[in-house]
């Protein structure tokens, strides 16, 4: 478990928690991952690797719809894509084959154990 209450103030960290809670299988990478590991730099956007199984993609699309993003269905199946949500920009840096997400640790954001890439 990690930064907890600090993480919930970051829109990017909240976005990760909301997407993960909705059933999207993902791993947080990039600046938000470093932030959740304790870096001071406030993340600009959320970078995630997303599991490409249809259940995960469907859950992500459904939650993004509630966050004000109407996702065209063909975008979901691209290898990478970006959208701007009401919690800030989301970069899906890679959609990987089902079950091949990178190694992650669970860090707490507002009571949700969000998978975050292992710190290098």
């Amino acid at each position: 478990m990690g930064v907890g209450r600090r993480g919930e103030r970051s829109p990017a960290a909240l976005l990760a928690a909301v997407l993960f809670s909705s059933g999207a299988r993902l791993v947080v990478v990039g600046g938000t991952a470093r932030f959740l590991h304790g870096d001071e730099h406030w993340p600009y956007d959320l970078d995630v690797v997303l599991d490409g199984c249809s259940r995960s993609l469907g859950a992500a699309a459904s939650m993004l719809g509630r966050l004000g993003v109407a996702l065209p269905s063909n975008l979901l199946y691209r290898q990478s894509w970006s959208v701007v949500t009401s919690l800030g920009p989301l970069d899906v840096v890679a959609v990987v084959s089902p079950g091949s997400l990178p190694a992650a640790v669970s860090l707490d954001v507002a009571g949700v154990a969000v998978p975050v890439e292992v710190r290098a």
Partner: protein
Amino acid sequence: MSKRTGLGPVEEALLLTLDELGAGPQHPRVRSSVLLAEIERRFAVAPRYGYQVACDLAHRSTVWLRLLDDRGNLGGLGHPPAEPRYTELRLTPIGALAVAAERDDALAVPIGIVNGSVYAGGQRPPFAPKTLLRALIALLDDRAIEDEALVGICGPPAFPTGCDVSGDVEALLAGRPAVLRLSASVVPGVERGKEVLRITNLPPGVERESILRSLQSRVESSSWYDLPPELAASMRLPIAGVHDASTDTVLIKCRVAPGADLNDVGARLRELWGVYVDVPAALPAPLLVLLRRWVADHAEARTAATLRHLLALYEAT
């Protein structure tokens, strides 16, 4: 980029073509579709790209020094522009001055340094015309002026929307790439006996609708029943309602929930994406070098008078 004005090739093409179509500041505007067809014919600039640039050059909230004067709906405040056949354009007096400078009929003017390129997705930040032009005039008057005094006159980057600028401004002015944080104003107040927070001066590029959507999805009564309770609570902000009071400028009013601390709610709103954005910024050289180089390249007997004229034109708009 033009050395005379600092404008890009598409901007220059638009201005020169408008001038040749006779659409000067004192003349009737021409239909945007006519202008776009002409710049495609003469400069091979595709109309859709040209129209986007034309809209940028006409918006008060996009550039400090407006070069085009419009009639019709050229978009803004989150709305797309109307089709070019329904809008009209002509040069503003500053646009006409830029054309004259490009044609060597007037002295060079630092429009590119003032307007920057962040509005068009670039990294050069804008500077307020009053301060930047006064810094150049001070430098023309006294080439030995101290660096500190010059930076003091010019000041930090400033955006036409009036948003607050923070971040590593010092590094930026020293010529190093930096991330600027652009923040809207969140001003507390009381209306009809209820505490409100007024959001104005949005950062450039942030659409009013996206802020409204963001706020409305997170008001106190918003439904996140399917999320874990702590996360659902984090998604809810202590605001009871959101009201869009925008007219020509953006004004969003958030009614603070009963019992919530006004300062705390203000702090949470300032952390909302869109109320602030981070933008990468870089100057092509340290600001002092840019200013001194511009003066070295363009100083003539009437340069200071030209800059004063440009400032007067800006202040008249």
